[in-house]
């Protein structure tokens, strides 16, 4: 059984065909990478999976359940967590407060008893704080626990964002450029972290990233999108050496004019 299955998905914004007949599959415990040039429709695909966009046609299936019509928060409740390209955190709140907010669905009381100050809500608040601390500790973020999100640098925020999405207790993690703004060493460390998180939380991960080495190292399967279409799909090595992918990354002319002796063209590392 696959965790996520996107079938024949298309979305048009007016005349722009942002995605056309995209098929994507993520199996249990898999890490699936999505690469592609800017504007290829990668984030649009995420927005369709999480429910921010309604696709023009096609379906999104999560654990054999068609979720195409569900609103965003219901999909989160089912276990789909996502991060955003430009940091999806509440900027005016502290890091811990964000993790507490992200545990919205795990809180064991309803909104009304919270407002009325029913005694059990107090202990529950303590519990979600402890859980927040635990997750931050796991990701090595204890130092920034009480820092305001708006005051933190981008690189740290990318990790805080992963911590926050973990707090929603996801089953399927959609990461939108987790490695952006990171150098090669940091990206490598991020790769280790993702592999560890998969083990620790039993996660299936779909991630978009421009760091081709990172994607090829951790992914079990890679999709390459270009102009809203799946250009190539397969194991990392297959996609990396795929002539269409190379052309999309290197440009048409360069492939033609490359007359030097190197046997195969590979996406630049």
């Amino acid at each position, binding site marked *: 059984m696959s965790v996520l299955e996107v079938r024949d998905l298309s979305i048009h914004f007016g005349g722009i065909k942002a995605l056309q007949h995209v098929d994507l599959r993520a199996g249990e415990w898999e890490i699936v990478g999505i690469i592609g040039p800017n504007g290829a429709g990668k984030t649009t695909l995420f927005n369709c999976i*999480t429910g*921010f966009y309604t696709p023009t046609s096609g379906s999104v299936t999560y654990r054999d359940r068609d979720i195409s019509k569900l*609103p*965003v*928060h219901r999909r*989160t*409740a089912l276990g789909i*967590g*996502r991060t*955003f390209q430009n940091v*999806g*955190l*509440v*900027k*005016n*709140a502290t890091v811990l*407060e964000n993790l*507490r*907010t*992200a545990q*919205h*669905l795990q*809180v064991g*009381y309803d*909104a009304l008893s*919270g*407002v*009325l*100050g029913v005694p059990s*809500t107090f202990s529950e*608040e303590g519990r979600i704080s402890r859980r927040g601390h635990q997750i931050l500790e796991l990701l090595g973020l*204890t*130092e*920034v*626990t*009480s*820092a*305001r999100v708006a005051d933190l640098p981008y690189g740290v925020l990318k990790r805080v964002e992963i911590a*926050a*999405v973990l707090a*929603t207790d996801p089953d399927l993690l959609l990461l939108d450029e987790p490695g952006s703004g990171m150098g090669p060493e940091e990206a490598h460390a991020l790769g280790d972290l993702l592999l560890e998180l998969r083990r620790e939380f039993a996660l299936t991960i779909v991630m978009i990233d421009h760091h081709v080495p990172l994607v090829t190292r951790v992914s079990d399967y890679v999709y390459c999108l270009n102009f809203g279409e799946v250009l190539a799909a397969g194991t990392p090595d297959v996609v990396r050496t795929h002539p269409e992918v190379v052309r999309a990354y290197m440009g048409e002319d360069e492939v033609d004019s490359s007359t030097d002796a190197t046997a195969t063209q590979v996406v630049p590392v």
Partner: protein
Amino acid sequence: MTSTLDDSRTRILEPVAPPVQAPEPADGLASESSGSDQAWRPSRAGVWARGFVWGLLAWFVLAVPANILSPFELGVADVSAATEAVIFGIVGLSLNILLGYAGQISFGHQAFVGIGAFTSAYVVVDLQLSFWFALLIASAVGALQAGLLGAVSLRLSGLYFALVTLSYGAFTEQTVFGITELTGGEGGKSAPRPTGFDSEISYYLLCLGFLALVVFIDWRLTRSKAGRALAALRENPRVASSYGINVKAYILLAFALSGMIAGLAGALLAHHEEVIVGSKFGFQLALLFVLMTVVGGLRSRSGVVIGAAFFALLGSGKLLEMLDKPLSAVGFSLTEFIEGTVGLPQEFVPLVIGPILLLLTITLYPGGIGQQIAPVREWLLGRRFDPHAGKVEEVTVNDVRA
């Protein structure tokens, strides 16, 4: 006997701990973010000082209006003005839920309050039911009508929704408050006080009790899941929904809660004035509500209550009267100056001073009165006196979308 002595001795010895804390501000720069506030406890003297100020506050709101242990001689009219200030405080907290927490503008809040007022008067006078039951009904009706308006807000945003609330207020004034059978027309509708709360001072204490209840609800709101959900969706609905928050449901909840509290405030206002007139709930009042909440400081309970009380006392002329007392020594009367020399009628004073204060608030202290009193509030709550407290939570101007 000896054991209690020992106890007190060890307690006296305890303040040895604070000197260890004392040098902390020096390295506070390094460890600012982590844990410096967890271990800190006020010294024994600090606890006494805080207790004294708390006592002074309690004396001011409880004993002074009752003329107990008080050098001031407050008359019935003064206590009545204080009651109005307390009710305005409840209205301010109600509006703060929408404006401050949910980030929704409401220029129709006078309608929320008015509907509560007339509902309560109707239940007591026409249905001959008890005052307490009327409060419940007024709150429920307030929640319902606000919820309906909230449903509209899900479809519209920003300026367009502000216009809807504006026209909702005007519409209510012209239609609902114009029904003579319901509101008594020009002569107004009587709203008798409950037995046992006939006197000004007892009714004042009753309203103060309700203010405390609303403050408690507001406190729990901000400290529980609903408050966090509102904070998240106010800033970024997309992030909120990806955290699993049902954005639409929580906006409706904010409207319903705000309407419930406004309805309660309206009911209290009706029985406070005893005769309630529909023309009271015009746009002027809505503007005053928004001004007092923003000047008081969005998302600051204490600030909003102080701001609301300030505008209420300004509107009833009691504040100028208070200032006149010491000024009379130099033969100057502020009331006379404004009404006579400037030629500004008393009831318009808040609407002239309000916008000036609003400008000062937005430009200098975006957190309003709440930001200015933050150091004192933090100190009163047992934390260190920090003159910069409250500066971090800056309210961006687009919070007051209109």
